[in-house]
């Protein structure tokens, strides 16, 4: 009576994919927001207005793309694992 009822009918990788795919879009945006927030905080602290905001916003955009890249790589790995398991 363990797993059987709820989860085993569903593929384990499917649940992993589901939760990753559900946040891919948000990951890209939240990277930018977090980067900008850190940069603005540093600007207020160091009184250097446009510099830290600009640099960290750029870093945020890069990290947003990196998050999506990592998610996509994991999704591909899961798909390949599924295919090898099926064979």
């Amino acid at each position, binding site marked *: 009576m363990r797993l059987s009822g*709820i989860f085993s009918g569903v593929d384990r990788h499917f649940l*992993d994919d589901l*939760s990753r795919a559900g946040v891919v879009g948000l990951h890209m945006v939240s990277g930018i*927001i977090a980067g900008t927030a850190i940069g603005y905080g540093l600007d207020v602290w160091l009184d250097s207005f446009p510099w830290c905001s600009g640099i960290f916003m750029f870093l945020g955009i890069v990290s947003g793309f990196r998050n999506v890249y990592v998610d996509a790589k994991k999704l591909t790995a899961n798909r390949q694992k599924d295919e090898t398991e099926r064979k």
Partner: protein
Amino acid sequence: MEHPVILSALFGVPEEYKHVFYTWLAMAVLFAVGFLLRGRMKLVPTGLQNFMEVLIGGLEDFTVATVGEEKGRKIFPLLCGIFLFILAQNLLGLLPFCDAPTANVNTNAAMALFVFIYYNYVGLRSWGPKYIKHFMGPMPVLAPLMLPIEVVSHCARPLSLTLRLFGNIRGEEIVLLLFFSMAPLASTLPSYFLFLLAKCLQAFIFYMLTMIYLQGAMEHAH
């Protein structure tokens, strides 16, 4: 738009602190279930015990299958607690006279920050100073560039955890209120089924992401 009749107002809780009241209510429900079941555990489970065993046993098997035997069992109590707690909080939103505490951004931020601190603590404890390798990227040459990028992307994690849960639950609450003011019962009843699914899914995604972050902190860097 305000909730028409609400339990926290009967207890004299001010409007701005009602999410705290409902968080405690969710905890009370979970504690009550725990104490109720602890007293009369049976070898052959029936009713509530059966349900909780299937839920927790299923989650444990799933965690162990994903993270690995030793590590999975170690982090499972936290993960299961998070899942049940968020599920109870989300489902409170569907009860009449109640409101989901997760529809307030503060509740979610508290949980997401806890997860953020905890997975970094677990990483530091399992790797010591070598934990910084998780932030350096695959190539040592690119490390100075990757370090700030990784720090920003780690800081983005609690943000995305918070906003996703908040946006979903808050949106559902608003839709329910709007539907209820337009056509009570006829329009809210069908949407209950959809929202029941969505709320379970949101709790599961929070659990799943916490597991992914903990796993990332515990395994080898790249």
